[in-house]
């Protein structure tokens, strides 16, 4: 098969690795992680624009290196060829290999931030997207000094404690995918956990879901195939997403 892969850059190393060993011919287009910070409707708009620009005559399907990503992909429309997405709330399912493992870990380790090579190298939004972030729009992007200047010392301290930091979080978990060059990312996570005074755990990731995505083994329990004329919708259940028919409005002639 010839496939187009549109992926969040958070999977940069994993997707390159999986594509390199795939029997399929795959063109990759990475989109910035900062799309996650601008709100679901603007994110969808940009992801859809990227899909709309694909010359679909060249491919059998467009595959997505995304989860539902806080509804940033809810509403995505397939055009002339199928669109394939993993059934995942977010990227951690793709790093851990399946959604059930993620849910188990999530529920038994509340208050955990995950780190991977991508989250360490590309976790911060930059450039234009950081200017558009929701945090900035609602006034939650200010430094302590800026808060003092604007609201006075007493209020600044209160706002800083209320709005910032990682309240209620207490652990960093490093997911090692087995494709990293040595332990540089692991060491950075260990250092960050120590600086924050948080717990640290390293777990083994699982490349198999990402590999099945690029290899074309799209079992419907793990992937959603959105056919032409359909769009991605949320189920709010264990299967996470479904394909719904785009309703065509019949206009009077």
């Amino acid at each position, binding site marked *: 098969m010839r496939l187009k892969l549109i992926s969040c850059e958070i999977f940069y190393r994993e997707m390159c690795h999986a594509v390199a060993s795939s029997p399929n011919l795959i063109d990759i287009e990475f989109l910035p992680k900062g799309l996650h910070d601008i709100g679901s409707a603007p994110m969808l708009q940009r992801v859809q624009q990227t899909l709309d620009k694909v010359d679909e005559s060249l491919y059998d399907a467009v595959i997505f290196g995304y989860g539902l990503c*806080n509804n940033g992909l809810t509403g995505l429309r397939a055009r002339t060829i199928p669109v394939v997405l993993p059934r995942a709330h*977010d990227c951690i399912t793709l790093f851990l290999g399946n959604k059930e493992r993620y849910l188990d870990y*999530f529920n038994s380790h509340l208050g955990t931030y995950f780190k991977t090579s991508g989250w360490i190298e590309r976790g911060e939004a930059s450039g234009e997207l950081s200017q558009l972030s929701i945090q900035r729009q609602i006034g*939650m992007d200010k430094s302590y000094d800026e808060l003092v200047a604007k*609201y006075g010392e*007493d*209020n600044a301290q*209160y*706002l800083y404690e209320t709005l910032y930091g990682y309240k209620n979080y207490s652990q960093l978990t490093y997911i090692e995918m087995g494709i990293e060059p040595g332990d540089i990312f692991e060491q950075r996570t260990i250092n960050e956990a120590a600086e924050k005074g948080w717990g640290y755990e390293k777990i083994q990731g699982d490349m198999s879901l990402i590999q099945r995505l690029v290899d074309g083994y799209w079992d419907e329990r793990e992937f959603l195939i959105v056919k032409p004329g359909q769009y991605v919708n949320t189920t709010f259940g264990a299967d996470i997403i479904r394909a719904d028919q785009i309703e065509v409005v019949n206009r009077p002639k």
Partner: protein
Amino acid sequence: MEDLKQLYDAIVEGNANKAKSLTTDALAAGMDPQDILNKYMIPAMDEVGRLFEINEYFVPELLISARAMKSALAILKPRLTATGAKPIGKVAIGTVKGDLHDIGKNLVAAMLEGGGFEIIDLGVDVTPEKFVNAVREKGANIIALSALLTTTMPSMKTTVEGLKEAGVRRQVKVIIGGAPVTQKYADEIGADGYSDNASSAVALARRLVNEPK
């Protein structure tokens, strides 16, 4: 009698210390606590909500105004209780089971308190049973649920189901909110209302407590 326009201003400007001292002075001067609340404090928070809705105020301004309101209310409360005054409603609020993100929840709680509601803050990662207990034991008549992740949104559904199973669903109105939450989802799980921001949550809660059961 001194005009308490200054208290109104202190809350709108988010000056907690000034709001506290003005409230203390007003009580010492013999002003009716119910009047202080209804004529100055609640209207001040309504104005804050209006400024937020026209994008003049943002989240930090809402928070510091709510903080000023709460500081003044803390002084007023013992006196209000003594007069037998009742809040317009009792809201049990929390982030649903599995969710630890409470900035939005705290903001909504502060705005509702500023709007004249009594708040039972159940904190984060709240099980359906705790919400049920808040209805049974504390007399909550509104349940407010918050979730930041699509991963934890299903806990909103299980909470509504938990209220039904416990036989208390009809005693309360359920309102929901949080970044990924929508009106459509509220309809789907049988919640009574949805709000996409802390300010309109107050209007929603006021409307619901006035609805016949």
